[in-house]
């Protein structure tokens, strides 16, 4: 098996694997928000940035190659990820104190993981529409980080309900329906797209605050621990299915 050096540790990888896949297959965490083992990589959040042979690369899209020296845990890389996370916070309207996703939110957990204590950048306070027209699913665009996981999941559902429109600061999450409203789309509450959002942008209605504090996903475990426990097995399963 070919190997790469990951933070000084030799790890094996299968040809065709990206750096994040190689690391996760060895239960080594690389921070990420837009990557998910069940979907093709998107490479947009840049949280998985690592140094490969001295160059910054996105681990979710960069293929692992024999002899690579990958640095993920340096202070320089942590600082880079911290700034990216702070940008995500200020670009949207993320009000953790009243958000129903608090304690279960990957963006919030990432902030804690990276030692974020302030936003650093000035808030944009964008004006974005909330869409509560669907009987069972709420779309709160204030919290969207444009990771496109809902877009990819909806594609996998065979529906294409979601898409990103516009560019740069004008990017927005749009819905494929005659009115542009979620209530007029063919999204079903059981679709994967209704449950994949890493933040609180797409939530199932009337399920808020049911999990007591202390029992929420990130109350007792870091995002790294949760990711290795929950996503690494999904990745291994995918490769096992490939081999079969």
């Amino acid at each position, binding site marked *: 098996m070919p190997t790469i050096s990951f933070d000084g540790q030799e790890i094996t990888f299968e040809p065709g694997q990206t750096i994040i896949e190689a690391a996760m297959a060895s239960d080594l965490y690389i921070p990420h928000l837009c990557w998910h083992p069940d979907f093709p990589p998107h490479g947009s959040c840049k949280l998985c940035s690592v140094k490969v042979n001295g160059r910054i690369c996105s681990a979710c899209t960069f293929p692992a190659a024999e002899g690579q020296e990958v640095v993920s845990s340096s202070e320089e890389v942590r600082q880079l990820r911290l700034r990216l996370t702070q940008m995500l916070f200020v670009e949207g309207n993320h009000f953790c104190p*009243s958000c*129903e996703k608090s304690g279960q939110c990957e963006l919030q957990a990432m902030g804690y993981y990276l030692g974020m204590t302030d936003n650093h950048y000035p808030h944009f306070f964008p004006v974005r529409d*909330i869409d509560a*027209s669907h009987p069972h699913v709420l779309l709160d665009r204030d919290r969207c980080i444009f990771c496109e996981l809902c877009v990819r999941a909806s594609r996998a559902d065979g529906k294409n309900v979601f898409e990103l429109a516009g560019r740069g600061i004008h990017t927005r999450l749009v819905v494929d329906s005659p009115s542009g409203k979620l209530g007029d789309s063919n999204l079903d509450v059981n679709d994967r797209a209704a449950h994949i959002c890493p933040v609180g942008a797409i939530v199932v*209605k*009337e399920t*808020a*605050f049911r999990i007591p*504090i202390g029992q929420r996903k990130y109350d007792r475990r870091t995002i790294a621990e949760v990711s290795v426990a929950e996503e690494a097995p999904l990745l291994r399963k995918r490769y096992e299915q490939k081999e079969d």
Partner: protein
Amino acid sequence: MTEQKYRHLETAEHPETLRRVAIDPVTRVEGHGKVTLLLDEDNRVCQARLHIVEFRGFEKFIQGRPYWEVPVLVQRLCGICPVSHLLAGAKAIDRIVGVDEIPPSAEKLRRLLHYGQVLQSHALHFFHLASPDLLFGFDSEAEKRNILELLRTDRFCDIALEGIKLRKFGQEVIRAVIGKRIHGVGPLPGGMNKHLSAEDRACLEPQIDEVIRWSQNGLALIRNIYLANADYHRRFAVIRSHFMALVTNRGSHELYDGKLRVKGDDGRILYDQLNDQTYTDHIHEQVKTWSYMKFPYLAALGPEEGWYRVGPLARINTCDFIDSPLAEKARQEFLQLDRGLPVQASLAYHWARMIEILHCAEKIRELLADADLYGGELEAKGEKRHEGVGIIEAPRGVLIHHYCIDEDGLVTKANLIVSTTHNNTAMNESIRQVADEYLDGQVLTEPLLNRIEIAIRAYDPCLSCATHAIGKMPLQVELVDAAGATRQCLIRHADGQVVFQ
């Protein structure tokens, strides 16, 4: 008759000719407020006002949010009694999801939470904020009037420490029910999200007898202080008002649920068992240009006659009995102060507050032994409505939350009448009484000005909670340079006109 005896001190005829003295900020209260006095050349007080200088706007920015988010969002109004807003919001949302009665387990959990909250809030107010005035004296040095100095003083350190531990216990009760001491999560539309754990019971139960003893010590302390100089305390900041509070259908003292009762200054019950869902028929609000806080009054009596007081004093004055034995005994003794008539002395608020601490401790003991806290249904369902009102007795008095939602479940309207707001006219009357009785014609000194603050503190106001007159009072933004000089001033008037000065 409850006419505002000191109303003539609200607005001076020629303020431009008068000297202005400001107490800014008012200290040892929650939030930011100031008092302004206008004096003539003979130091006669011509105007006295309590101003609330903060601006919040929760009623506005909650619009467009989903209804299930409301209780958790609005509890951020306050860091002292967030549980009050959490529960009032939750009760309103219960109504919106069509639940008029939540299951017994859920209600008892909410009650436990609320008793913990009232206990800690009262302890914080009395021991940390108010007691230094009462123990060291109104005229003591300003530097001494704080809880740390009490802890450093041999004769007060034990009781001060008990006060701190009382608050800690109340906070622990809150944490046990909603996961955090401040801004936790527990109430759901129509219920609660968990039972009390066996571990939390094992933590709280062994402490409760001691907590009751500390509560009794605190009650004895304020009783003895008050009676030691009864005539002065009875007259200080005294005003005559009606009182409003929730009572049960049997007329007993109630904090979490119940119906509104108004008792007149002469002891007659003016209104009883008013339906909380129709509060707008009974309570109207007046706006004045000089305060962000509105002035509620009884609609049937009008703003001049219909003002009233809420809070511990109102609750003790208004109820027929308290359903816990030690607190009920204390209530009966308290009511002897004015031979069975409603006690009007503003400083009697402290005594009433300590009766309620004891009541809360007794009820917590009772509830911790109740099996419903540890098992049983937690949630009820109903037919959705578009409007809901929730009223509870917050530590500082009647708290009203009112929401309307649209077809999609988003909030279209919110109205909050916060406890301190109900007391707005009364607090202004009290400071005017103090200004008139003790400051008028005097050379002002710090101890004299402290008397104004003592009158305000008696009400335990939560000024940050109470600022809701959105769009009615001019909104002023000042740009101040490093030297403290105002460089630019932007004012948005009530009519929406924006002016640069």
